[in-house]
């Protein structure tokens, strides 16, 4: 439509976000504003939401550059608790490393690590009550580990073997653990957010004291479910905590494609009228403190909180991803907030409550623990090696009871096995 009466106006230009660094680029993080630890005020847990708005643009930090804990957000945890936290984070990392290797060795089809983000799941899990229901995304395996869930069970699920509680129906890492108050993971992003709100509303309807906490990546905040969840949480003052893990990357898309160029993810809370906190996601003490603040707020009927965990996805998105295709390898090395495991370790050493030797010994012990668990799980089979659930179980749990059409289809499946393997019989799991 050129050459018309509006030709004196400038042409419009579409803005398509572009990350600062691509493969091979030299990384310079000087544009990142990293607040100094201890400089962020800690408002009263029952304050009006608006009082938290400055914290939505700041970064709550506890551990300073000398690895000392600073007030006012220092949760003042005793050394035993700090060591437990360190151990759970280190176990999460050891578990990830082993499972990643297992995928490469063909023991399973798929895996996703949470390297660099261990604090964003382990610390909240420790700050919540064990029966607060968590609605995780796929990168919060640290919650299960912090809650003491059996890693053999986790590996059984990853291997889809005959001991897999989910009967081989689910993609690896899509755990479900009701006994650990860990909601069934879905492949559909952000759906767990309104569900967490509904769970929290139900708890409030029944006059319970349990709260809900949900996790979502920064990329998935672009989903409509995020908006629905925030709206419902605000409208009903639901006792829920939203954790946005901003690890800078949604597969190959940098956070700019979720709107990060304009504001922070914590700042989304402002428009909904709910409390928001932006925390150093690689500072386990800050994450713990923020969760504790939000949990106390929710339990006091003072409403929901959105916490943005500012962190970095140190590894590829999944075993199917190669991050060297879209980002500079230097990003991870240069990340200014460091490594969460190392920071807690250094803090404990600075306190005189830990040592390099103890840490090395712990890492060795955890590697051994995972190795033993792996061997234990492998006795139940690995993917594609025949030790899986009987295939008639494929038809169960679609409904509470098997309707006629699923009964017919189940018989068909058994018939097909007999055609392919005439020697097949019930109880013979070879397939």
């Amino acid at each position, binding site marked *: 439509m050129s050459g018309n009466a509006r030709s004196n106006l400038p042409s419009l230009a579409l803005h398509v976000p572009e990350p600062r660094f691509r493969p091979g680029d030299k990384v310079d993080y000087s544009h990142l504003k990293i607040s100094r630890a201890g400089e962020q005020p800690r408002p009263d847990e029952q304050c009006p939401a608006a009082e938290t708005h400055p914290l939505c643009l700041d970064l709550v930090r506890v551990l300073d550059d000398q690895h000392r804990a600073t007030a006012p957000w220092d949760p003042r945890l005793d050394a035993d608790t700090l060591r437990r936290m360190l151990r759970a984070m280190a176990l999460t990392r050891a578990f990830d490393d082993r499972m990643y290797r297992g995928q490469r060795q063909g023991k399973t089809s798929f895996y996703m690590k949470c390297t660099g983000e261990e604090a964003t799941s382990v610390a909240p899990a420790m700050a919540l009550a064990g029966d607060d*229901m968590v*609605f995780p995304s796929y990168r919060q395996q640290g919650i299960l580990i912090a809650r003491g869930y059996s890693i053999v069970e986790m590996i059984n699920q990853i291997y889809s073997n005959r001991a897999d*509680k*989910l*009967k081989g*129906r*689910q993609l690896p890492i*899509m755990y*479900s*653990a*009701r006994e650990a108050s860990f*909601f*069934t993971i*879905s*492949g*559909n992003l952000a*759906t767990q*957010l*309104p*569900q*967490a*709100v*509904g*769970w*929290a*509303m*139900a*708890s*409030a*309807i*029944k006059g319970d004291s349990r709260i*809900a906490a949900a996790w979502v990546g920064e990329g998935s905040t672009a989903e*409509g*479910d995020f*908006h*629905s*969840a925030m*709206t*419902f949480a605000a*409208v009903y003052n639901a006792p829920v905590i939203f954790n946005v893990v901003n690890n800078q990357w949604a597969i190959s898309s940098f956070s700019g494609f979720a709107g990060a160029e304009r504001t922070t993810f914590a700042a989304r809370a402002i428009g909904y009228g709910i409390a928001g906190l932006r925390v150093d996601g690689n500072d386990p003490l800050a994450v713990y403190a923020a969760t504790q603040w939000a949990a106390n707020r929710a339990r006091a009927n003072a409403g929901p909180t959105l916490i943005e965990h500012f962190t970095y996805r140190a590894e590829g998105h999944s075993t199917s991803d190669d991050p060297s295709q879209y980002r500079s390898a230097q990003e991870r090395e240069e990340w200014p907030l460091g490594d969460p495991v190392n920071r807690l370790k250094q803090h404990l050493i600075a306190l005189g409550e830990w040592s390099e030797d103890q840490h090395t010994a712990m890492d060795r012990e955890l590697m051994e623990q995972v190795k033993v668990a792996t061997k234990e799980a492998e006795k139940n089979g690995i993917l594609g090696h025949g030790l899986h659930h009987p295939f008639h179980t494929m038809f169960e*749990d*679609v*409904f*509470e009871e098997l*309707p*006629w*059409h699923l009964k017919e289809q189940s018989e068909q499946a058994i018939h097909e096995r007999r055609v392919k393997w005439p020697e097949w019989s019930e109880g013979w799991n070879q397939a």
Partner: protein
Amino acid sequence: MTYEETPVSLAEAPTRRLNMIEAINDALDIMMERDPNVVVMGEDVGYFGGVFRATAGLQKKYGKTRVFDTPISECGIIGVAVGMGAYGLRPVPEIQFADYIYPGLDQLVSEAARLRYRSAGEFTAPMTVRSPFGGGIFGGQTHSQSPEALFTHVAGLKTVVPSTPHDAKGLLIAAIEDNDPVIFFEPKRIYNGPFNGYYDKPVEPWSKHPDSAVPEGYYSIPLGKARIVRPGHAFTVLAYGTMVHVASAVCAEKGVDAEIIDLRTLVPLDIETVEKSVEKTGKCLIVHEATRTSGFGAELSALVQERCFYHLEAPIERVTGFDTPYPHSLEWAYFPGPVRIGEAIDRLMKA
């Protein structure tokens, strides 16, 4: 079944004349009374009592934390209901029009329908989504749709469509008690009276129809069981919702001895009743208001063809809405009314 009681003999139970809205309201009232975990929510369902009055009086009786208005967000309504179900409640969310259920579709298809399966029974979605559906009310494109086929195609969902006040109450009670997610479509054209398709003639209110005699108190009609509206020998009619009445009226007008089956539940389907009838009559007419291509009628037709082939004496007839969005001014040209059904009947009778 949660409640162990001596079966109620409906024949002896005192009845009241109710229209379909009143019957649905009665069912909700009874279930809220019986089960403190039943929670009703949706747009305008609270203080106002619903745009069709289905939830009238419930908030006053049960309080704001059990019957409440929601933001205008179908994704939120269904998503929140899934979370409530996971907690242990038995939510009954309302979607104001079936035409507006689509923003909640991901939560229904990817979540509610699969919760039990993907968690191997650890978490379930014992929810009933009520939604007015169907046309014949000059509702235009977005107040007339019949999207049942989108739901019957989803493993893990049950889909129910009542056609009378008596069934609406019993089926809704059964749906709320069911531990699987149920889509409960209410044909809004017959909320007030059994519309027979003759739009140019006056419509009778429910009070003149025998199926408006609704037993008082608790009773349920099992999901997955069809109702033989009229036994006959000439051919079998498979219909549900409004079209049960339309098909019945056309058959009566033509004086044919049709066996009319109201399917009531689409999934799980009462295949036994369907097979038995077609084996007897040898002919089958399928009627629905939804668009034709990939509609539920296609599934019904395929099942009848596969399972009753050697009894069939004529091609299966499928009378449906046309494959267009629901038009406003041309509503009666779209609606599968007496002419379209009548011609299909003529073809069956001649075959």
